[in-house]
């Protein structure tokens, strides 16, 4: 089952920040593939959503970038700044709390597996 765009869109910033916590530095394509792999293809981040969000995070100084030349082209690696790490913790905590609230609100019984 693929999740609706609204759900993914609302959590994209949190997903990216958490991935960068776990993987130190990543480039755009790598992020999309990691999400696909971790979610068994159920969440596919589009380039059109990923890069605007990464650039906004960079402008907010939550991520920093470093570049590497791959032949003639440039690869930009994104990694978390100190404030980005704090924001990642906060965002994950907020999302976890939100999910608990939704489980209670919608009376969803958590699965054991």
């Amino acid at each position, binding site marked *: 089952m693929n999740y609706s765009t609204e759900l993914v869109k609302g959590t994209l910033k949190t997903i990216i920040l958490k991935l960068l916590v776990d993987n130190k530095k990543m480039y755009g394509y790598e992020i999309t593939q990691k999400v696909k792999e971790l979610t068994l293809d159920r969440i596919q981040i589009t380039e059109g959503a990923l890069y*605007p969000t990464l650039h906004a995070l960079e402008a907010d100084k939550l991520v920093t970038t470093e570049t590497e030349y791959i032949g003639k*082209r440039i690869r930009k690696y994104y990694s978390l700044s100190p404030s980005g790490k704090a924001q990642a913790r906060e965002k994950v905590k907020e999302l976890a709390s939100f999910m608990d609230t939704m489980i209670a609100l919608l009376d969803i019984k958590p699965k054991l597996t």
Partner: protein
Amino acid sequence: MYFLNEQQIDFILGDINARGVRLESLQYDLLDHICVIIEQKLEKEEDFEPCYEATIKSFYRQELREIEDETRFLLARRNRLTLSRSQFFLLLFTIFIGPFVSYDLAWLVTSGPEAGWNIPLQVWAPTVVYSLFPLLILLVLLLTPERLDPLIPAKSKVLLGIRPFIKIIPRYSRVKLDR
């Protein structure tokens, strides 16, 4: 592992630019992303051009610059109040016409039924005279058709903040990014 040659990389970068992506940093992000995908596909002996066309098309719904529009929108939106076009016009209406209407209502409430509920000419006339000009300006802004390049186009967003106080982001493509 297949590697794109310099000509192919230049071609892709030129095409990204020609499709309206002007932010250099975004160009490099997209270039690398596209190159990685194509290099993987070309290992299975596909031709470069059809492979590139298929790949670039998967990046957007209508046009590639949707990604730049969204990036610019998110960057401009930081620390600003975002209003839809209709919310912005409601705000303008409230600021420019609201005081006149409020004055009339206040007059109505304070005068009471003994003075008659009809708003007399001395209240009505200034309302019509002074609010007419701003009302006409608002109507022109609101009703200018798209073909005449309106100041605030349909589906645009209006950002309120400091320097500039008002920033209009024309018809950006956030929905289209969903694919």
